[in-house]
C-alpha cells in the first residue's frame, strides 16, 4: 500500500516565476557595471535555489544580495530608472519566492498552484510599477531644491502614516 507522498516544497512553476522577476533585477543592474551585475546574478541564483529547496532563510539572503547588486549599481552611477525598477524586480522576486514557499508548505509540490502564484506576482509587480512610477514622477517634477534629508523625513512620515492608519 504505497501512499501519495506530500512534498512540502514549491514547484517548478514557482522557480520559474521567481526566475523571471529575478532576471529583471539582473538586467536592471547591468548599467552599474560588471560587479553590480555579478552580485545581482549571484543573489538571484541563490534565491532560485532557496525556492527549490523551500528554505525561507536562503531566499531572504539571496534577495538581499540581489538587491545589494542594484544598490551597488546605484552607487556606481546607474540612472534612476534602472535602480527603481531593479528594486521592484528584486522585491517581486523575493515576494513570489517566499509566497511560493508558504504555498509549498501548506499545499505541497503536487498541487496546481500556478494560477495563484502568477496572480500574486502580478499584483506585487503592479504595485511596484505604480510605486516606481510615483517615485519617478516625484523625481522629475518634485521639489529639486529641497535638501535630500527633507525628502527622507517625508518618506518616513508617509511610512508611519500608512502603518498608523491600519492600526
Amino acid at each position: 500500500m504505497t501512499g501519495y507522498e506530500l512534498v512540502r516544497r514549491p514547484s517548478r512553476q514557482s522557480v520559474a516565476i521567481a526566475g523571471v522577476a529575478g532576471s529583471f533585477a539582473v538586467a536592471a543592474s547591468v548599467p552599474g557595471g560588471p560587479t553590480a551585475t555579478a552580485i545581482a546574478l549571484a543573489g538571484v541564483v541563490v534565491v532560485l535555489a532557496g525556492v527549490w529547496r523551500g528554505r525561507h532563510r536562503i531566499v531572504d539572503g539571496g534577495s538581499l544580495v540581489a538587491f545589494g547588486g542594484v544598490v551597488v549599481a546605484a552607487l556606481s552611477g546607474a540612472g534612476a530608472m534602472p535602480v527603481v525598477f531593479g528594486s521592484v524586480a528584486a522585491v517581486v522576486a523575493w515576494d513570489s519566492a517566499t509566497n511560493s514557499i508558504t504555498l509549498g508548505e501548506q499545499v505541497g509540490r503536487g498541487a496546481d498552484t500556478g494560477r495563484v502564484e502568477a496572480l500574486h506576482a502580478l499584483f506585487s509587480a503592479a504595485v511596484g510599477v505604480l510605486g516606481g512610477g510615483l517615485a519617478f514622477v516625484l523625481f522629475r517634477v518634485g521639489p529639486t531644491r529641497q535638501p535630500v534629508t527633507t525628502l527622507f523625513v517625508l518618506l518616513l512620515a508617509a511610512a508611519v502614516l500608512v502603518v498608523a492608519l491600519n492600526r
Partner: protein
Amino acid sequence: MSDPADSTDGTASDGGTNATASDGGTDATTTETSAADAATGGQPESRDRSVGVREPAAARSDADPTDAEPGDEADEASDDAANGLTVRSVTTRRTNRWVGVAGLSFLTGGLGVATSTRPLLLAAVVGVVYLAYANVSSAPAPSLSVVRQVSDSMPEPGEDVTVTVTVTNTGDRSIPDLRLVEQVPEALSVVEGPARTATALRPGAAVTFSYSVTARRGEFDLDGLTVIVRNASGSEEREYDVATQPTTLTCVPPVDATEEVPLHALTSPYTGRVATDTTGSGVEFASVREYQHGDPLSRLDWNRYARDGSLATMEFREERMATVVLVVDLRPAAYVQSGEDGRNAVERSIDATHRLFNSLLDTGDRVGIAAFSEADIWLPPGAGPTHRAEARHLLATHPALSPTPPAERVYVRPALRLLVGRLPDDAQVVFCSPMVDTAAAYVARRLHVRGHPVTIVSPDPTRRDTVGRTLASVERSNRLSDLRASGLRVIDWADDESLYEALERARRRWSA
C-alpha cells in the same frame, strides 16, 4: 477502480453527498448568497437549503462577534443543522513578511541620503509603497460553499475511491489567495494527487480538486476542510477549520467464510454439527449396546440379528450445536503490527472475527460478538440472516472497531466481569488477540477456568529481525505454549499465511 475518468464526469448517481451538485450548482449558490443577506433580515424561511454548505454567517460572526444578534445566532444554529456546517476554529495571524522590506527601504533611503544618491532615495519610496500595500488590506472573510462527491460511497475494501471537492466563492468579494486542505480521515491513505489546492476565486467562481483514497473497512466521514485565506500581499492570513456536511464512505467487507472452524466439545442441547462424546443418533459410529425396550428400529443392528438372533442397538456420536462468542481484543496494546506497513493485529483480528462468524453461522452454530474496548460491544449469540447482517454491519462500521488505536486505556477486569456475566452458560469463546501482553493471557485463562472453553486465534505481529523483537517474539510464543499446556487451543496465525492455512494447521495438530 482507480480510473480517474470515473470521477471527472461527476455523475450524481454515484453517491455524492449533494445530489443537487450536478443539477446546477451555480444557481443554487446564488440563492445561498441571498440567503446570507436574509439572515440579517431575519427571514430564514425563505432560504433555499438544497445545496451544500455555506459559510458566510459563521465567517461573518467571526469578524464581528459582538455584533451578532441573538436571533442571528439561533438562525445560524438551525442553518448548521440543516446544512451541516460549522466553523470549528478560526485563527487570524499577521505573517509579518513585509517587515524586512520596510527596514530595508529605510536603510536604502538612509544610504541614499548619506551618499547623496537620488536613485536610492527613489528606491526607498518604492519600499514605502510596498509597505502601504501590505498594510492597507486584510484577509477577506470568505463565504464559500463546499460540495464533495465520491466515486463510490460503498466501496469494497482495497478499492480506490476518488473524492472530488468543489469549493465555490459565494460571497461578493474576490479571494486573492485561497488554500484548501482536505482533512482526510487518518485511517484512509491518499494514493493519488494531493488532497489540497490553492487558487484565487472571483465571486461565483469555483475550484475543483480531486484525490483518491484506498478504502479500508469501516465507516468514514469526510467532513473536514481547512481553509486558509490570505490577502493579495500575504500580510494577513486567516485559517478556518471547517466542518462541512459529511460525506460518508462505508466500506463493508464482503461475506467471506473460512472453512469449518474446529471447536471445543462444549455444546448446547440442540442438534448441530459438533460431534460430542454423548451417544445417540448421529452419523459417526460409536458403539453397540444391548437392545432396550423402545429403541428405534432404524438403529437396530440387523446383521447381528440375522447372525445369532440377538437384538443390539447401534450408538452414534450425537452432533450438537455450539454457542460461540467471538471476543476481539481492542485494547491499545493490541494495536501492533509487524513492520512499517501492513495491517495491524487488530485489523487482522477483526478480519478473523468476520470470517469465523460467517463460517460458524454457516455450520449452524449460534454466534455472538464481544470485545475488550472502551466502547461497549456486545452482540448476543444468535443465528439467521438478520443476525448475520447485524454482525456484518457492526464489524464494518462500529467506531471502536476502527483501524486506529483508541485514545483511552481499557480496564481488563471490569470488562471481563461484564463479559462473563453476559456469556450464556454453554458458550465457548474464540478469543482474537495478538497475545503480546500478559493481560490477554489472563483473560483467556479466566474465561477457560470459568467453564467457557477458549480457542485463541492469535495473529502474530512479531518479527525476528532485531534482538529486541526476537525477545518479544520468544516471549509471545512462550506465553502461547503455557496456554496450550493449560488446555486452551491456540491458533497461531502468522503474518504471511491465510487464516484458512492457520486453521488447517491447528486442526491437524488437534486431531492427531
